[in-house]
């Protein structure tokens, strides 16, 4: 790796850096800073009072628990999907590969409506589960389903390229040494995939925390049961209570940053362990 040089060979550093920083500031940093500014209009005690209201707390709880559940499901299903798409040949594989990005293309509100009609008691999937006494739409399970829909491409697309580039010789070596297929997967392949899986899951989790469009329809938005944080923020905004809205948003932001920071930490440690050096 070349370190910073006094004279750069490749042109355009000033220009591209300037544009990037300007856009980053306008699109990301200034809006984020405005969050802090708006929240700061409340005093510290009021801030604490706003974010510890029972309804807000239950919103945090619902948001995090459903996002976490969806992320776990997505991590596992994403791994399986990526594995199937990379390692196996079967008819319809290309279609399957293209389908992964469907949640990006379908507007989330549309997805929310159709998932709701599918999983309600009279819907195709909902009526099946209703036989076992499981209600999906208008419960936390429903929120989780919507979040799984939204988050799946992040995990699959994070794992896929890593799996494709994986050097087959380690697996062959392990097999030659007598490891069973599952052991090979667990001890050789999985550690290589874990960083990608974690970063994909981290992205999906972040996305799930802020997801609004698809969730509001399927959740039913019952306070203390299926009311998610973004909805509370939205209702505060509609009451022109910007201070409360930004305070609640700030907490969500802080927590998702903490989680992503944790994911990065785990990742860094993993890379170190695998490569034997800081990558």
């Amino acid at each position, binding site marked *: 790796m070349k370190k910073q040089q006094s004279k750069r060979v490749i042109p355009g550093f000033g220009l591209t850096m300037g544009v990037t920083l300007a*856009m980053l500031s306008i699109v990301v940093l200034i809006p984020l800073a405005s969050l802090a500014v708006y929240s700061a209009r409340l005093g510290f005690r009021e801030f604490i009072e706003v974010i510890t209201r029972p309804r807000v707390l239950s919103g945090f709880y619902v948001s995090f628990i459903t996002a976490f559940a969806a992320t776990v499901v997505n991590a596992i299903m994403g791994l399986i999907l990526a594995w199937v798409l990379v390692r196996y040949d079967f008819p319809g594989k290309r279609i399957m590969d293209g389908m992964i990005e469907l949640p*990006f293309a379908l507007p989330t509100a549309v997805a929310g409506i159709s998932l709701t009609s599918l999983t309600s008691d009279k819907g195709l999937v909902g009526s099946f589960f209703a036989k076992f006494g499981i209600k999906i739409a208008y419960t936390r399970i429903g929120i989780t389903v919507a979040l799984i829909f939204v988050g799946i491409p992040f995990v699959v697309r994070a794992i896929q390229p890593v799996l494709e580039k994986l050097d087959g010789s380690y697996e062959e070596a392990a097999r030659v040494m007598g490891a069973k297929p599952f052991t090979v997967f667990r001890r050789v392949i999985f550690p290589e995939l874990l960083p990608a899986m974690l970063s994909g899951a981290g992205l999906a989790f972040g996305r799930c925390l802020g997801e609004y469009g698809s969730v509001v329809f399927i959740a039913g938005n019952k306070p203390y049961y299926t009311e998610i944080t973004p909805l509370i923020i939205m209702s505060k905004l509609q009451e022109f209570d910007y201070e409360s809205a930004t305070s609640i948003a700030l907490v969500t932001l802080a927590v998702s940053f903490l989680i992503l920071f944790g994911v990065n930490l785990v990742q860094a440690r993993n890379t170190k362990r695998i490569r034997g050096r800081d990558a």
Partner: protein
Amino acid sequence: MDEKKKQASGPVKWILIGISVIFLFVMLVLPLVVVVTQALSKGWQCYVQAVTDEYTLKALELTIEATVAAVVCNTIFGLCAAWAMTKFHFRGKKASDDFDRYSGYGITGHRRSYLYSGFWKTEPALFCS
């Protein structure tokens, strides 16, 4: 990669493919099917009428305009950012990269994947009719 890597380990392969197909069918295909069938449930005429409604058309127009504008901006910005990130080394490189990737998602949820950013606005079109 070569063909040898695509070793078929019998039942495991088909079980995993089965799981994937079921998952994708239930989670992604069925919602899409529901969208199409519900859109056409009252007949083609009704669909055309809803889509060619004055407000719907205006909303669609706005969507396309906003999408084109956003894509142009993002292409230029993305190119610059990618060039700056990959060709040079500077302090705080990793932080700015992560910041850009993560911060938008957690909080507003309005910042989609770049290309599709404009599609958010199709939603008003849905509720007009």
